[in-house]
């Protein structure tokens, strides 16, 4: 390469021509879907993917958007903020109209400013950190609830329902996990409770015995964990192995079949804050049925959310008959939507007006809604 600079120049030129040609090959409307498609959170990415696929197939079967087919572009952020930024730039360069994603707040938040600058509407089905919508961006929406709501539900449940006073709080140091843990601590402190332990762990590790041993010293009745299911599996298993009887409570990031499946007996009796049972929503029956037919599995925690986010985007594009992101965002904001999750309306920031969180319990290896 060193002695033949003209060769690399020629290659670069060829590349530019290819990319330019690609950008003009637009007889489709491109929509980005981003999340952790591979790695330890691949299950969650898969949920996002499936919901979006079903929505796009429905619309394409109806003839697409003003005569053009919808093309989904995938972005794998591996729940890494740096990857998320790379994915966001890729999407902007490919000229996507809107993005369904990302999954993790730590990815959605840095990506959102890139989407804003690139004039792309972003609807997250699952990022619950308040900061996502609190920064006043015009292009962001979230279909799910917020961690301040979720945290207060968890804290109230501990104080009023379980009537426990000694709470240890642990999180995975991510935007989502730490945010959720902090909101829960805030709500606990309003109930005059200070956590007996408050600390972080590193995502992706497999051995949490040292930190659990330290937590055991303070003899908590409850362990609240802000984080995602792979670490929750390890924590519950190793907690029981160390002979701890502590009640395990966590948030929506742990609502995954892997948690009950792999943690087995250790997960029994754990409480998870999550939205009400989607299988009981009558509007959701259609998408749940199609998911079962197409993928041969039950919907995950955020499959329907992803489906709704994608559907809203397509409807807004169809209604405005344009790919102008400002007009699309405006339309999403002012419309009263009827969705698979029931009626939805957005506030100025892009949050849903009503987001009920309830508590689920693991009973007999399954999640059961209890209040």
């Amino acid at each position, binding site marked *: 390469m060193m002695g033949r600079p003209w060769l690399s120049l020629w290659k670069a030129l060829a590349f530019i021509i290819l990319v330019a040609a690609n950008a003009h090959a637009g007889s489709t409307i491109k929509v980005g879907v981003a999340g952790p498609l*591979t*790695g*330890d959170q*691949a*299950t969650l990415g898969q949920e996002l993917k499936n919901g979006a696929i079903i929505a796009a197939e429905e619309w394409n079967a109806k003839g697409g958007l003003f005569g053009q087919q919808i093309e989904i572009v995938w972005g794998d952020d591996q729940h890494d903020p740096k990857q998320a930024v790379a994915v966001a730039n890729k999407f902007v360069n490919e000229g996507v109209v809107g993005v369904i994603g990302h999954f993790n707040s730590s990815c959605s938040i840095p990506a959102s400013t890139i989407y804003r600058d690139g004039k792309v509407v972003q609807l997250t089905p699952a990022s619950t950190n308040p900061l996502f919508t609190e920064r006043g961006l015009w292009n962001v929406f979230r279909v799910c609830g917020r961690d301040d709501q979720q945290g207060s539900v968890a804290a109230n449940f501990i104080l009023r329902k379980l009537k426990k006073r000694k709470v240890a709080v642990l999180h995975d*140091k991510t935007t989502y996990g730490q945010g959720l843990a902090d909101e829960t601590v805030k709500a606990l402190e309003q109930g005059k409770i200070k956590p007996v332990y408050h*600390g*972080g*762990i*590193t995502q*992706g*590790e*497999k*051995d*949490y*015995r*040292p*930190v659990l*041993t*330290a937590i*055991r*010293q303070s003899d908590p009745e409850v362990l609240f964990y802000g984080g995602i299911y*792979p670490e929750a*599996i*390890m924590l519950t*298993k190793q907690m029981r*192995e*160390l*002979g701890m009887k502590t009640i395990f409570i966590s948030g929506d990031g742990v609502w995954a079949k*892997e948690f009950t*499946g*792999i943690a*087995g007996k250790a997960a029994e009796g754990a409480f998870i804050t999550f939205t009400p049972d989607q299988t009981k929503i009558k509007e959701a029956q259609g998408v749940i049925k199609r998911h079962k037919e197409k993928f041969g599995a039950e919907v995950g925690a955020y499959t329907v959310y992803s489906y709704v986010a994608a559907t809203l985007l397509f409807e807004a594009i169809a209604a405005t008959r344009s790919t102008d992101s400002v007009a699309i965002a405006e339309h999403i904001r002012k419309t009263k939507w009827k969705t698979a999750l029931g009626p939805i309306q957005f506030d100025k920031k892009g949050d849903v007006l009503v987001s009920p969180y309830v508590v689920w319990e693991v009973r007999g290896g399954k999640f059961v809604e209890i209040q």
Partner: protein
Amino acid sequence: MLLQQLVNGLTLGSVYALIALGYTMVYGIIELINFAHGEIYMLGAYMGIVTFTLLTTLHLTSPDSGVALLCMMLAAILFCGAYGVTIERLAYRPLRTAPRLSPLISALGVSIFLQNFVMLAQGPRDKGFPELFIQGGIDLPGGRISAIQLFIMATSVLMMFALHLLVRRTKIGKAMRATAQDKQMASLVGIDINQVISVTFLIGSALAAVAGVMIGMYYGLINFYIGYIAGIKAFTAAVLGGIGSIPGAMLGGILLGLIESLGAGYISSEYKDVFAFAILILVLIFRPTGLLGADTSKRA
């Protein structure tokens, strides 16, 4: 608390020690840091699951029998041993006379290849390890030793003792020591160097395979990426004990496990890895030969 952290640390440390032995033995003989060694351990863990699935779907053994575990261990040892020897043949032997950087780069290449190979073959998701028959534990004042922790420590000690006997008391062990001392001289007195190197890779890989199966049982979850961090940690353990020294690798592994556990328990769990690598840096600055390492300045 202290007792519990010591137990946690010793368990982790004995696994590090098993992996570190492979690094140290290979380095002792061909002066190569085999960066693909962590992946061998990862393959061992996967082989454990594959074997278990085979056994249970064919109804050859009941899932909670000792026989299943024994088969998993043996299959992993054979499989990883073959892998280790093959990697040496294909990726290192042709480069034996090349500048020292070449086989190192080759080792990194093998490591990346194996990670991606397993990711594609087995999927990127975490795999749950079967709950084997080793359940329960012993409650002690201020701590609890689970049966699996005892099993890991006992197995590691047994493996290390067997290795010690092999190196000290057998003919091939003598040949290994001779090769480590002086390759040229050893081949002049009739030792088949290639065979000795192959055996070294075989033994190192077998130890890593056992470590892989045990860590799978201990954590309950594995993925294609576990070899990377474990490999780096075990390498740190080998350097801490003195790279090239077999008792050094054992000591380094145990010490590193203890440092990590105690650091996580008493100072901060978030800085667990920082302690391990701070130790590595300190050792390299103040005692580059490690705790039990021989002074290699004469050879260089």
